[in-house]
């Protein structure tokens, strides 16, 4: 028996790529199919997640959790312009917890972690093999110059001001080098890999592997 979803999937992929020839109702069909499928999937996951999240209420009898369960439905007021303020209540709770967690995690991992990493690299300049010492020294210089680019408050004046201006200009180039390398690494990345994956899946499907 033919699996009907295989030819439908292939048709969707080809309809999407028809955009390269011309934007057409065929492409819009594929686009709308994707959007509908994505939202439908989120809702299906949501229903099964409900079962998991309501488990403490339904099975373990933790009725206090009925409060956030009810508060969650206030989220839907976002869609009603005049009643939008009602959604502030559940948003306040998730924002409070989320922001607090993010702040502490960011300070610890991003700010302190990276600063300590920088200091440790500085400590490894002396006594290391020449290549390691050079790399560590270079990364420290590039980091400091790049950081000077993000100083948006008081601009130093006088003798240090001209040093800072030089650091700022070099920092610009350091950031460009860094972003350029990231971009160059990306060209192989997602686009080609996903295209190849789609083509391989089409071939596998036609060969009956599903």
């Amino acid at each position, binding site marked *: 028996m033919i699996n009907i979803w295989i030819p439908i999937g292939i048709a969707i992929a080809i309809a999407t790529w028809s955009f390269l020839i011309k934007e057409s109702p065929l492409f819009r069909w594929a686009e709308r199919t994707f959007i509908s499928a994505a939202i439908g*999937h989120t809702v299906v996951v949501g229903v099964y997640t409900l*079962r998991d999240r309501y488990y403490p209420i339904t099975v373990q009898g933790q009725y206090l959790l009925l409060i956030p369960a009810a508060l969650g439905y206030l989220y839907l007021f976002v869609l009603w312009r005049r009643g939008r303020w009602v959604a502030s209540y559940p948003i306040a709770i998730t924002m409070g917890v*989320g922001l607090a967690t993010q702040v502490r*995690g960011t300070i610890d*991992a991003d700010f302190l972690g990276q600063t300590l990493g920088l200091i440790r690299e500085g400590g490894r300049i002396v006594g290391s093999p020449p290549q390691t010492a050079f790399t560590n020294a270079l990364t420290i210089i590039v980091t400091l110059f790049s950081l000077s680019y993000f100083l948006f408050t008081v601009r130093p004046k006088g003798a240090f001001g001209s040093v800072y201006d030089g650091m700022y200009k070099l920092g610009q180039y350091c950031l460009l080098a860094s972003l350029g390398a990231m971009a160059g690494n990306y*060209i192989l990345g997602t686009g*080609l*890999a996903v295209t190849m994956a789609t083509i391989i899946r089409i071939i596998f499907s036609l060969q009956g592997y599903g």
Partner: protein
Amino acid sequence: MKKEEGASVSIWSKAQSVRAEWLWLVTLVLIIVPLAVPPHVPFTVNQSTLRIYEYVKKLPDGSVIVSGGSGQWAFIYETSAAFMAFLTQIKNKDVKLIIFPLSTDSLMFEPWAVKVTGFDKVKEYGKDWVVLNYVPGGADITLPAFMTNIRGLCRTDVYGRPLDELPIFKTVNSYKDITLWVDCGANSIPSLARYVAPYKVPILGFVHSAYYGMFQPYIAAGQVYEMTNGIRGGGEYEKLVGYTPWNLGTVTMDSYQLYSIYILALVIIANIGTQMLKKEEKKQ
């Protein structure tokens, strides 16, 4: 002489205004031809992929691995090559795998990867591997809770079975019981560095090539053990473990051979053309 100059200008100006459709047609041919006639281009294995391979090889028996990452299905394709090679490597090891999806697409992708690699055929569900349900709220809310009390955060698995009924959770409930965290979701490394790394759980990342450079500071700071570089890293990992049923990395490297030369040629032609047209404008 003037006619020749006029002809060379029109060549460059014609080259600058070539239609995109022709460029795309050549692209399509260049990526499909290696599929039909695979050249099996050789490429070396990077130090970073080798380190990951060696680390996983040395995992002690009874290790508990958590595979947790977020991402969209299409984007995860890029990291799927490395993830499936990883699953192939641990398939025959005495390890336990807990899949903790951080997005609705990871919830579908990781079990699918398990089936494609045949991991589920050699491991018993509930005892050796389990798929937890998706917990809404984002990594900021779920990860810290997961690390301290897994059963407090997740009540059932994806089949609706309570975690207390699953043998794997008789000995696993917090960061103390986790040996390794693997991110196959491509861009969850910052969240893992913030909420998993402080508990000294080693993290391996199979990341997008776009994020490989961006997440290097986490490796330098010792928060992440190592990462693979997008699809190239996937191809290298596949090479190390041998054939995987997916083999996307190896196939993509074949196509990239011609694709990359083509892009480089286009950039060179575009830049030379720009300079030539500038010169002509100055002369005029």
